[in-house]
C-alpha cells in the first residue's frame, strides 16, 4: 500500500476517490478483499458470495464518500468502514431466510431498510429504481457510446482530452456525448 501512504492528506484521498482515480480505487479494492473473503468463508458462504458482497459494499462506500455521507479521516477509516458494511451485508443475507441462492445485489429490497446497525448508512440512493435501470441500460449500451460516456463521466477527462484520444475535434466530441446521453435516456425511458 505504498502508493496511498499515510502522509497523504485526507482531502487528497477523498478527492482521489471522488475522481475515480483508478490507482487509488484499485489499491483500496485489492488490499481489503481477503479479510472479507475469510469472514464469508468462515460463515457458510462461498468465494462467489464473498466477491458479490464485497463489490456491493465497495460501491456503497464509494457512493457514500462521493455524496459526503461518509468523510473518512484517513485510509484506515475507509478500510474499517468497508469491512463493517460488507459484514453487515453478509449478516443480512445470512438472516434472510437462509439465503436462498437468489441475486442479492443492492437492488434487492430485502436488504433495504434494515437500519438496526449503528454503522450501516443505508445506501438508499443506490436502490433507486431509475438508477438500476440506468445501470442496466448503460451495461448494454453500444461500445462507442459506452466508451465515450465512461471517459467523460467516470474517468472525468475533459472534452479536449477525449477529442485527442478519439481523434475527433472537440465540437464533435461534445455533440457525440450529447447524442449518447440521449440514446441512453431513451433506453431508460423505453427499455426494449
Amino acid at each position, binding site marked *: *500500500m*505504498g*502508493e496511498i501512504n499515510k502522509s*497523504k492528506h485526507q482531502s*487528497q484521498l477523498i*478527492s*482521489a476517490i471522488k*475522481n*475515480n*482515480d*483508478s*490507482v487509488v*480505487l*484499485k*489499491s483500496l*479494492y*485489492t488490499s481489503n*478483499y*481477503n479479510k472479507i*473473503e*475469510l469472514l464469508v*468463508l*468462515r460463515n457458510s458462504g462461498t468465494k462467489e458470495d464473498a*466477491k458479490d458482497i464485497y*463489490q456491493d459494499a*465497495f*460501491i456503497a462506500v*464509494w*457512493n457514500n464518500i462521493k455524496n459526503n455521507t461518509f468523510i473518512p479521516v484517513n485510509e484506515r477509516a475507509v478500510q474499517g468502514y468497508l469491512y463493517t458494511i460488507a459484514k453487515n451485508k453478509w449478516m443480512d443475507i445470512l438472516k434472510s431466510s437462509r439465503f436462498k441462492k437468489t441475486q442479492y445485489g443492492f437492488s434487492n429490497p430485502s436488504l433495504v431498510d434494515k437500519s438496526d446497525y449503528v454503522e450501516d448508512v443505508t445506501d438508499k*440512493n*443506490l436502490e*433507486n429504481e*431509475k*438508477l*438500476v*435501470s*440506468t*445501470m442496466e*441500460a*448503460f*451495461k448494454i449500451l453500444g461500445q462507442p457510446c459506452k466508451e465515450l*460516456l*465512461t471517459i467523460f*463521466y*467516470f*474517468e472525468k*477527462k475533459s472534452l479536449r*482530452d477525449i477529442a*485527442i*484520444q478519439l481523434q475527433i475535434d472537440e465540437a464533435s466530441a*461534445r*455533440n457525440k456525448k*450529447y447524442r449518447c*446521453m*440521449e440514446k*441512453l*435516456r*431513451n433506453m*431508460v*425511458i423505453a427499455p426494449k
Partner: protein
Amino acid sequence: MKEKSNISQELLETIECYYNNSMDRDDRIIFEKKLQDSPEFKEQVEDIKTMLLGIETQALKEQLDDFHKEIPLEKNKIRFLQPLKIAVAAAIIIAFGCFWFFSGSSNQKLYAKYFTPDPGLPTTMSNSDDFEFYDAMVNYKHGDYDKAIQKWQVLYQKQATNDTINYFLGLAYMSHDKIEAAKPFLQKVTETKKPFPFLSEAYYYLGLAYLKEGQIELAKENLGLSNTEQSQKLLNELKN
C-alpha cells in the same frame, strides 16, 4: 423519466456543472432558485443526476471485476487437517519449499541482472510549466528517489493521467525497491490509449516487477508486449 428529448444540450451541460460542483456562485443561486420554483425542472435535474450516477456506478462495477483479478492470493486459509494429512502436506511443502527457494532466488538474480533504472529525461529547465517535473527528475537522476517520488506524487494529484509522470513515478518506486507501489503506475501507463514513447519500456519494467515477485507468467506476458532488446533477451532466459 418522462417525455423524450425535452432536455437540451445546454441544459444537460448546466446540470453536469451543478453535479460536479463546478458552477460559479451566482449561477448556482439562480439554478437552485429555479429548482425550488419549478417541480418539473427539479424532476428533470434529478433524472439527469440519477443517470450520471448510474453511468458512474456501472462503470465502476465493471472495473471492479478487473481489479478482482489482481487480488494477491490469500495465504491464511482455514483448514481442518488430520495428522496424516498434515504429515503428507509437510512433506510436500518441504519439497516445494526447496523448489521455490531455488527458483525464487534465480528470479531475484535475473531481476538484479536486468534491472537498471531508466536514465531519465534530459533536464533542460527551459519551460517553467515543467519546472516541478524536471526538478524531481534531477533528484531521480541523483538517486534521491524519496524526494523524486514526493514531488511527482504532488504532480500526480493534479495530472493522474499523465503517462510521463506515471512512468517515472513507477520507475522511482522500482529503483527504490518498492515494487508493490511501482506496479499500479506502470500498469496505468501500459493501459494508456494515447501514443506514448516509453510504452515498450513500461511493459519491460512491469515484466521485471512481476519477475521480482515470482509471478513468472505475468512477467512473460508483459515482457512479450515490449519490443526492447532487453526484454526479448530476458524472455529467452525465462523460457530456458
